[in-house]
């Protein structure tokens, strides 16, 4: 098995780092609609419905929902230890930013290439927000 590793620049929004398996959400997410016990997305009709974001690197289109529910959603995941290891966001929006700072969830944006082309479900990804770097390892 050949492993391809690539490094990309990005911008730090919330400091920290994390690595793990990538899970890709091409749509915006409201974390209130995740089961805190398992990190499983329960929003009806969401592309990630039925899949868990716990312990993964979440590539996310954007956030949605009011600040009250988004903050509480991420908070409940943090209490249960089911947060993603880090979030790479495509379209940054303020509620998602505020909520991630509250729970100390590492977050980056402005990946130098289109993140949805560079990262696929199941890739191994390391996000280092402090160094503003994303490492992607594809298995083929």
């Amino acid at each position: 098995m050949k492993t391809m590793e690539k490094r990309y620049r990005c911008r730090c929004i919330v400091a920290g780092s994390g690595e793990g398996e990538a899970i890709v959400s091409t749509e915006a997410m409201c974390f209130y609609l995740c089961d805190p016990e398992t990190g499983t997305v329960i929003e009806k009709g969401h592309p990630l419905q039925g899949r868990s974001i716990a312990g993964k690197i979440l590539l996310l289109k954007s956030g949605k929902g009011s600040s009250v529910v988004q903050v509480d959603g991420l908070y409940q995941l943090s209490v249960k230890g089911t947060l993603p290891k880090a979030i790479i966001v495509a379209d940054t929006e303020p509620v998602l930013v505020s909520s991630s700072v509250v729970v100390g969830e590492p977050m980056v944006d402005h990946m130098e290439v289109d993140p949805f082309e560079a990262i696929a479900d199941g890739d191994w990804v390391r996000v280092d927000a402090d160094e503003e770097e994303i490492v992607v390892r594809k298995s083929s």
Partner: protein
Amino acid sequence: MILSDDEKRMLDGSCGPGVQKAMELQVALGKAFDAERMIDVSRAHVALSGQEGDTYWCELLVNGGAVCKVTPTTNPCWDVKMLTNHYGVSQAELDLALRTIDVYRRIGARLTFCCTPELAGNVPSFGEHVAFSESSATPYVNAVLGARSSRESSVSALAAAVTGKTPLYGLHFDENRRGTMVVDIDFWPDEPYDWGLLGWCIGEFAGTEVPVLRFRDRPCRPSPEALLYLGAELNTSGAVAMYHIVGVTPEAPTIETAFGAAPVPSSSQTVTRADLKAKEEALSEEGGKINLVMLGCPHYSHEQIRDLEVLMRGRKIHDNVAFWVLTSFEALELAERSGERRRLEDAGVRLVPDTCIDEPCWKSFEGGLGVTDSPKCMYYRERRGQPFVVRRLSECVEAAVKGEVS
């Protein structure tokens, strides 16, 4: 972002971990909006919710040594003294409310527990830079008072209260406050209720735009309550934090002024009286027997309590109906002094301060049908499992007396 020495000290932890966390949040927000720097704020309003995530954030700051530099007013949670005796809440729900009240007291907030601070108690003046969360308050301070506030969340507004700063972007700049679309309205809304429905209609197509409302005729000035309801719904069905009404709001003496250097768009959206009626029907549940009438989202003013008292004269509410009016402690005190409270209570209507519709204290009504004059109330209560019929005040009173609504 370019930070002052003072701001750098907050960010590097020299002022303690609580202040550091608050500044981290604001720098992250500033980056997200490409703000070049921070600006001082002179007022803040925190839309505390009594939800655990929000309370946790306040604890994180205060346990890290933070206290508010700018004393913020606060949104309601629920009146634990009055309502615990009436309705079943779990020990965990009561504990969370008490924890919320305690932690906001410790961080140095002004515990007003009222969602309409801009009408009394925390009123910014024209041009003042402030950090106001609460979806009904942000459009009011921007559009009606001419103060400058971003569409803050409760957590970012609390951070602003702690640091005394907010990232400089968006509505803090004159050019971003200009209108971006025209809405033509060929009727004059009668009551705050109609203004609320109008706001809901416009919010649906305005999204994050800055709508400029142009009325064909303006027989009088809209009341503060009318403008409050307009903004509350604009910012519930949409994300409108700034709007103009030509000839009414301070940054729109003429339609040309509302658009600044840009030309007035030749095309416009329209809203008619028939649209309001259709919206009322679309938002509302089917009628039927009711168990609750809930008014005061946003909090009822003393003027609205007086209007209600006039409508209730000589009438009594149905045995199967609870009638609650949510209001500010100030309006409640005025209603006590001026006599409306006693007369309303004799008719079966109860007034409660410090309380929001979206709290666990109301859960014993869930499963039944409610009536309200607020689409915002309907929207948030639906999430908690109680459907609402939306009607104007006089029809809410009729429903309360009959125990049902058609």
